[in-house]
């Protein structure tokens, strides 16, 4: 597989690990922001291969994990309406709501469909004019363009039985929230390669300047990850803080202009609640007024009451990188992938599930 096998080369990975070993002189704490990177680190056994001075902290970049409980309950509520076909990305299905998960209500007879793209949901809306099709639009900047495009196309082609339940969040405000936290110990970031593929570098420069932290745009394969870590460590050791691009085979300074235009047409920046973290100002997207007919929260009256998180779960501290999954009293005991108390145990990108699956020996 071109552009994949080269980045899984054991000799090259080893060479980079040796270089990290050679230059590191003191402990450093680095956060990988994206859940895909967390997954890559643990799946390939990289955490055990790094020198002991390097502590990797797993950031909030798992869309499943940060989607508020209330929104999952809303999705469940919508799917229980027999006039609704609820479409979702696969890994949202197992996330527990306050009472049930989408997977459970699917088994009970709700029409819940797993899709790879919101554009497929639009096709389902066309094929089922007597049903309301709702797409659970979860994700970071990476899924925003396709979700925006589905709404844009629905409006353009006059499809009225389609709407999206929006839970879009943005990475840079979350990075700032973490850096501002009184318990913060993050000294450098691996930025999420695919997020910057869409957004470009622009919004990261002010953060680097204000907080004096190195940020390296990093990919997801083993070699990407160790190279990204090496670049951050090199900056930290030299006392530098700048933006570097490890993932230059994919990411460009200006991002993807076409995708950005589509996002801007349909979405505007808004305050958003993050599961486990709370509300972060200007940290997400909502549909522009022009597209409010396509907002499931406007279209359907939903009063789901107050929802409470599980009291034992420390997902918030895990997402902010303050605690490791195994520091949770419920980890691997009351909380397992079969019976998750919090979202990070559900998605393969969640830090708890990653630790549970790959590092329990």
């Amino acid at each position: 597989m071109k552009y994949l096998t080269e980045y899984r080369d054991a000799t090259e990975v080893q060479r980079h690990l040796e270089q990290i070993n050679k230059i590191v002189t003191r402990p450093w704490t680095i956060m990988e922001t994206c859940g895909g990177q967390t997954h890559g680190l643990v799946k390939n056994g990289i955490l055990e291969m790094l020198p002991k001075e390097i502590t990797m902290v797993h950031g909030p970049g798992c869309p499943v994990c940060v989607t508020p409980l209330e929104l999952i309950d809303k999705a469940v509520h919508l799917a229980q309406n027999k006039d609704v076909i609820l479409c979702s990305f696969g890994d949202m299905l197992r996330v527990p709501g306050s009472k049930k998960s989408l997977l459970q209500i699917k088994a009970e007879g709700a029409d819940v469909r797993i899709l790879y793209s919101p554009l497929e949901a639009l096709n389902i809306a066309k094929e089922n004019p007597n049903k309301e099709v709702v797409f659970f639009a979860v994700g970071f900047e990476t899924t925003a363009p396709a979700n925006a495009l589905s709404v844009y196309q629905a409006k353009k082609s006059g499809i009225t039985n389609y709407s999206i339940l929006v839970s879009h969040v943005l990475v840079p405000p979350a990075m700032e929230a973490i850096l501002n936290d009184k318990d913060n110990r993050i000294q450098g970031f691996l930025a999420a390669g695919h997020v910057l593929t869409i957004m470009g570098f622009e919004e990261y420069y002010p953060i680097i300047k204000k907080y004096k932290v190195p940020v390296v745009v990093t990919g997801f394969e083993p070699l990407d990850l160790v190279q990204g870590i090496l670049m951050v460590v090199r900056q930290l050791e030299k006392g530098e803080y700048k933006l570097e691009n490890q993932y230059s085979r994919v990411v460009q300074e200006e991002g993807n202009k076409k995708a950005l235009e589509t996002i801007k047409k349909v979405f505007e920046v808004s305050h958003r609640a993050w599961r486990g973290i709370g509300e972060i100002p200007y940290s997400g997207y909502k549909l522009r007024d022009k597209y409010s007919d396509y907002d499931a929260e406007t279209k359907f009256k939903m009063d789901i009451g107050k929802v409470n998180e599980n009291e034992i779960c420390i997902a918030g501290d895990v997402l902010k990188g303050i605690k490791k999954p195994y520091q949770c009293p419920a980890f691997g005991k009351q909380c397992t992938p079969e019976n998750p108390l919090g979202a990070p145990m559900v998605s393969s990108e969640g830090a708890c599930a990653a630790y549970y699956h790959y590092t329990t020996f």
Partner: protein
Amino acid sequence: MSNLTNLQCPLPQLDFDIITLGHGGGGLLTNRLLDKAIFELFDNEKLQTRHDGAVLSFGQKVAFSTDSFVISPVFFPGGNIGELAVNGTVNDVAMCGASPRYISLALIIEEGLPVTELWDILVHVKAAAEKAGVWIVTGDTKVVERGKGDKIFINTTGVGEMHPNADISTNNVKQGDKIIVSGNVATHGMAIMSVRKGLEFETSIESDTCNLNHTIGHLLDEFGSQIHLMRDPTRGGVASTLNEIARDTQLGIDIVQDAIPIDTRVDSACEILGLDPLYVANEGVFISFVDSSVADAYLKKLQSLEFGENSAIIGEVVADHPNKVVLTSKIGGKRVVNMQVGEQLPRIC
């Protein structure tokens, strides 16, 4: 890859185009269907007694296994539910170290199934049974209302005579045993995935469903009790099967990612869909645990046999980390490979 595609066998003259509830009623319609589509097609002396069951005789120990097939879609790249239903049970019996001889065939058909499709399935049942050398000696046909099934469900049950040299048991697995996989992994699961509604993608991946009994027979002839365990890693894939064995033996299992054979197209499809091939279902693949003293000779022999050309040693049984499967990744890192939880669900990004 299925070796039964492009079968030609003319549809018999029937005065109906689709299966109706009456075909499961036990009366005239049932008899008309069975006469033409079952008794003529699967003709053998046991079946022709047309009794409530078949009378069989064996002079030695017998292995016995059953499996139900509810695959969707019933026609998939490289095969259909008919041959899958025969191969699945044939292989389960073979995994016990037996030579499968007789199988039963129970059909649960959804009302409205076109007779042409039923015929296509039955013709593949016949061809798969002939290829494996088993007789269909008893069976059942039921029809359920439209919407209560998914075209057709099939149950097959098989019996076979134990190979005189076979001594296959989880109890025989010991530290140092080599673990050998007989072919490329994850092929069947990805072939099915490629035609599932909502996930369709263009690919030339075909299911690897096949009968493994002849291959296993040859291995037992030569290596006998040096083969400690054989398993076919169907649902849940290689990872789940190895986990079951680690748990049951209370030994550790080490596997090497780079050694696991996989077709590039299958690997790429898994990569795109975000699935781990170790958890994807297999059909025409089995895993052997063999004594380390014969591992190289066993591999060489297997590579020379039908369906064994891509076989490889993927790991060994160890005393460390009991009950756990540990994988050495392509880059040399180590991680635990756990039992699959629920279904593998595609990731968001």
